[in-house]
């Protein structure tokens, strides 16, 4: 092999090297963000106390009364972990949905699933017994039921004509999403008191305040399975980016792939929205930023997007809890305020470099 081709090959291998670096850096950042998220808050806990509280919690001992063990182990640790899991999930779903409808502007909520989840949750708050804004298990179940119902509706619409074509999926998702949002807005107006309205709005804008150890299991399992299911289809996802005919010519069963992707992304979205409300912008921004760094190849992109999503949401939740004294911001507000300008800046810089 000549020196020239060896050099060319070295350049071509660069995305793989960058992906490994990105994964290592993001892994370290995730650990740091989790530690910071547990230490900082309405009352700061020294890292030493955090360590002893976590050690006691992991070994199953009861918290020491009069210390901050309870805050750390029952509130902050599950909340930080939930932020990481939801962020990872949103990064994954965003990546998959963008490939599914072959549009880099797609986000997890495009397919209408979150509208169903929101309607379920809001109905539970306004009409049900679990009122009061507590994001308890009853609320999660209602949200997940709503997600499944909207999934069934969108599925029925999208499969007509036999295609699951990108356009049909988007139109069905947007149409049914708007329809369900209409109901949600109606219910918000029917909310009995300010307390209820506040709870509803907080839910609609996304919140990780309901985190408990018990509510972690479902999203952890769903995100792990989702990652494996998507990685198994990474090559097919790549092919799908080039077009349905190209994918078919590469031996991909496009209709079946779309059906599988639709199920995976819908279930994952339903689970995520049911534990955290609809947190906007993460699913749109994370895949974009990650593609700029490691390229569009899904075998590299999916794990990196999951890691970046996790880091981002842990940090965002920390900001949401600590930015204003005595007041917690909805996570979705912070993601939009930080995320949108960041994305615009990155895209703009890219255009200036002539790579748009």
């Amino acid at each position, binding site marked *: 092999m000549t020196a020239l*081709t060896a050099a060319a090959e070295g350049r071509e291998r660069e995305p793989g090297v960058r992906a490994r670096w990105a994964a290592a850096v993001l892994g370290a950042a995730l650990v740091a963000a989790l530690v910071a998220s547990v230490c900082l808050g309405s009352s700061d806990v020294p890292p030493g106390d955090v360590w002893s509280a976590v050690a006691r919690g992991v070994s199953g001992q009861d918290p020491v009364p009069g210390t901050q063990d309870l805050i750390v182990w029952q509130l902050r640790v599950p909340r930080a972990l939930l932020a990481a899991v939801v962020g990872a999930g949103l990064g994954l779903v965003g990546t998959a949905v963008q490939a599914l409808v072959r549009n880099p502007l797609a986000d997890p909520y495009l397919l209408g699933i979150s509208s169903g989840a929101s309607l379920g949750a809001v109905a539970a708050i306004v009409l049900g017994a679990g009122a009061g804004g507590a994001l308890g298990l009853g609320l999660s179940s209602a949200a997940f039921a709503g997600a499944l119902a909207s999934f069934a509706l969108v599925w029925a619409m999208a499969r007509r004509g036999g295609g699951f074509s990108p356009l049909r999926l988007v139109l069905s998702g947007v149409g049914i999403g708007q329809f369900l949002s209409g109901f949600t807005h109606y219910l918000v107006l029917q909310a009995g008191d300010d307390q209820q309205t506040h709870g509803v709005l907080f839910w609609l804008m996304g919140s990780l305040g309901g985190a408990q150890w018990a509510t972690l299991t479902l999203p952890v399992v769903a995100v792990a399975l989702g990652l494996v299911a998507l*990685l198994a289809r990474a090559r097919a996802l790549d092919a799908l*980016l080039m*077009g*349905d*005919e190209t994918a078919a010519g590469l031996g*991909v069963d496009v209709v079946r792939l779309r059906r599988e992707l639709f199920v995976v992304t819908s279930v994952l979205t339903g689970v995520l929205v049911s534990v955290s409300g609809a947190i906007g912008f993460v699913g749109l921004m994370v895949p974009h930023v990650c593609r700029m760094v490691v*390229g*569009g190849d899904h*075998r590299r992109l999916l794990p990196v997007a999951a890691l970046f999503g996790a880091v981002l949401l842990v940090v965002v939740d920390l900001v949401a809890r600590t930015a204003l004294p005595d007041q917690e911001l909805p996570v979705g507000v912070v993601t939009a305020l930080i995320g949108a300008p960041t994305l615009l800046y990155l895209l703009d810089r890219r255009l200036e470099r002539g790579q748009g």
Partner: protein
Amino acid sequence: MRIAVEELDVTLSGRTVVSGVHLVAEDGEIAGLIGPNGSGKSTVLRTVYRYLRPHAGRVLVGDADIRSLTAAETARRVAALPQERGSDFELSVRAVVAMGRTPYKRAFAGEDRADADIVATALAGVGMAGAGARRFSTLSGGERQRVLLARALAQDPKVLVLDEPTNHLDVRHQVELLALLREQRRTTLLSLHDLNAAASLCDRLHVLHEGAVVASGTPREVLTPALLAEVFGVRAAVVEHPLTGDPLIAFDHRGVADAAADAGARVGSPAGPPGEPAAPPRTPVLKRRTG
């Protein structure tokens, strides 16, 4: 490996688009599909690379009906270059070519040394060896087509299927791409808009008109003024190319053919339309490709 389409019917949302189509590319041949817009060229090709399902009839690759093969098995024999030109998802040129290995890889399998070599060879084969790290979406139209051809070559297929590969390319890039196809010496089935390109490249032509094959044979047999008037609705003379000796179609760009009357008159007239040199009839022979 020979590829043949037999008695193919395709219906799209209840409408018959293609019916009774019979065509073939013998082993090592380049067979062209020509016909006006909407005559069913793309539909036939889409059935060959299994994007569409035939309503009746079959597609044979070698001796095997592709419906008896899995999708991946078909993709290892037949590589397609559809008209899609990709979208902007930050894919590198190398990643696009590496997609050609998809039908050989199981879920979760990474890329091994052999894949990397095949991808590098395919890129070098289309003259894009140094471009692996570039972004696919920043390439020019001609470069894109060459990279997509490299992707098809990385599939290591027995048969290449291309749908209008020279569309939207300037003349030079058209010539370059067709030269690359000639060099491959591979069984190839392609549709072409440019009849002169088809006459020069193809060993065999199949003419599609309103979903049916109306003529098959060597370019010299098929490309007659009568057929051009009847199928394409144009007045044209067929002469010998002064440089290559290929059939050269000289179109009359001043007006379309007065189809029915003209065509009938010309089919019977051995001299052809006024202005056509009275070439002596030749025995049609398949051209030997010289690489």
